[in-house]
């Protein structure tokens, strides 16, 4: 396999209070191609953040390994930028200071002017020009999240990792930021991995949607390929004939199958090769059915 990112049989366990251990997940396999946008959905506590932290190198799996671009992950890297759920800006630095901090961390020998220019470019990209001298405390939630995005983009990462980046925002701001992230990712062919609770966000942004069952011992139930056209727009997603079959499939998974999957595993289910499905107008899946794409 020469996939860009390859998660191979990783496991994560925590010791239980009364001895023994709880397995959050084990024997988890998943891979991504270069330039692909993947989203993972699943219920709270199933282990999504854990997977993302392992991809970021902030945590190491108890078993298995993660390979990025031919190298096993041993720790965090400037190649993999993280957009944190809590934006994690440094409150004592300005917007420009926060982004510059990332830029100067990546290019240690750059002059201050070069660093500032690169940081400003990223700030402009997320539409924050004019606010670069403000401190995070003077920004709205959406603006803070934009700074987090600018900081991640400023270091030209090979992979963008996002942990529910928009969940704390109001619907309007969220939509605007989704548009921006989609535009940037499509324009630059950015490889991205995102955790979300929002089905529509996954449909709009992701090429592949990973469905994770409830924990403990969570599994990847299936990988859903997005049938919507690549030049989709958020405002007319629902006009696509594939939209409702896809959405229903995802909602159906979150509502029922995420719980029952473990007991009703489809025949021939293989953790290493979870079924890939492509629900759409020409391929409406009835609940519970996971038809493989040829």
């Amino acid at each position, binding site marked *: 396999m020469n996939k860009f990112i390859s998660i191979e049989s990783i496991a994560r366990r925590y010791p239980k209070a009364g001895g023994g251990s709880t397995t959050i997940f084990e024997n988890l396999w998943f891979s991504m191609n270069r330039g692909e946008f993947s989203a993972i959905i699943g219920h709270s506590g199933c282990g999504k953040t854990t997977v993302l932290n392992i991809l*970021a190198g902030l945590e190491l799996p108890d078993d298995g390994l993660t390979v990025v671009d031919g190298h096993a992950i041993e720790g*965090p890297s400037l190649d993999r930028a993280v957009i*944190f759920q809590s934006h*994690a800006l440094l409150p004592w630095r300005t917007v420009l200071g926060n982004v510059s901090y990332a830029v100067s961390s990546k290019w240690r020998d750059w002059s201050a002017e070069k660093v500032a220019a690169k940081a400003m470019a990223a700030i402009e990209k997320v539409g924050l020009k004019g606010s670069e001298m403000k401190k995070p405390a003077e920004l709205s939630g959406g603006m803070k999240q934009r700074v987090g995005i600018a900081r991640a983009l400023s270091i030209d990462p090979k992979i963008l990792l996002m942990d529910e980046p928009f969940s704390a925002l109001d619907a309007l701001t969220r939509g605007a930021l989704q548009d921006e992230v989609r535009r940037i990712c499509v324009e630059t062919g950015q490889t991205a991995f995102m955790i979300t609770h929002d089905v529509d966000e996954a449909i709009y942004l992701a090429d592949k949607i990973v469905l994770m069952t409830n924990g403990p011992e969570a599994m990847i139930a299936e990988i859903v390929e997005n049938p919507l056209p690549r030049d989709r727009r958020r405002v007319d997603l629902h006009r696509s004939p594939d939209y409702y079959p896809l959405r229903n499939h995802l909602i159906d998974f979150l509502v029922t199958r995420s719980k029952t999957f473990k007991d009703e595993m489809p025949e021939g289910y293989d953790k290493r090769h979870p079924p890939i499905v492509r629900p759409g107008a020409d391929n409406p899946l009835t609940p519970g059915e996971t038809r493989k794409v040829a």
Partner: protein
Amino acid sequence: MLTSLNARGALLSAVIFTVFLLAWHIGVQGKASVAQMDPEYARLMGVAATQGKSAMPGPLDVGAQIWQHLQEPFYDRGPNDKGVGIQLAYSLGRVLLGYALAVLVALPVGFLIGMSPLMNRALDPFIQVMKPISPLAWMPLALYTIKDSSISAIFVIFICSVWPMMINTAFGVSATRKEWLNVARTLEVRPLRKAFTIILPAAAPTILTGMRISIGIAWLVIVAAEMLVGGTGIGYFVWNEWNNLSITNVIVAILVIGLVGMALDQTLARVARAVTYPE
């Protein structure tokens, strides 16, 4: 509204101060008239008292004395007669030297304790035992080992200011938000740069709180230490003027100690405000 509150506060302060001065003035006046009733006794006391007055001085006496000190703050007429400015400079010098040494020790050690749970466990018992020891209890030991009264006083300042700074630094460092550290980790920031660009600014407000506590304690302790070791300093000045029965000068010294202590505290408060970040 806020400015008018400030203005009203200042006005009330002035009123309280004036009432206090008046009460003081009148209270002292009463005693003086008692003394006048017995001229024999008054004359006797006048002779017994060495130059200064034995009766409680009034605010006008203190004011006149302050004026005199202001005319000539730095005169030096032998070991027992130096201007209040010189004495103050000696005390400030000792405090700042001992305090600076304490900063040099407390911040790095505090950092170490804050970053390493092992060092925290290992050093905690020592700190817990050392912290409650009155700094003056060290004085005999310091005099015996150092054999220099001035350096002993500096040592006592050092030992009393080091603990609050160390404890606060350790606490501030260990309380650095995990998410900020994760930012540094994902950016592959080197340990030294991380210490100065993430942990230090994150812990700075807590560290400054410790430094403010320390300077307060140091200024309290220097007066007592100088009374003990003698020689120079504002503490010695107070003791010397008490021996001279110059209550006026004692009151002046008390006032000066209060004002300088306030200035030290306000300076650090200003620094603390500068490094505090809103979240």
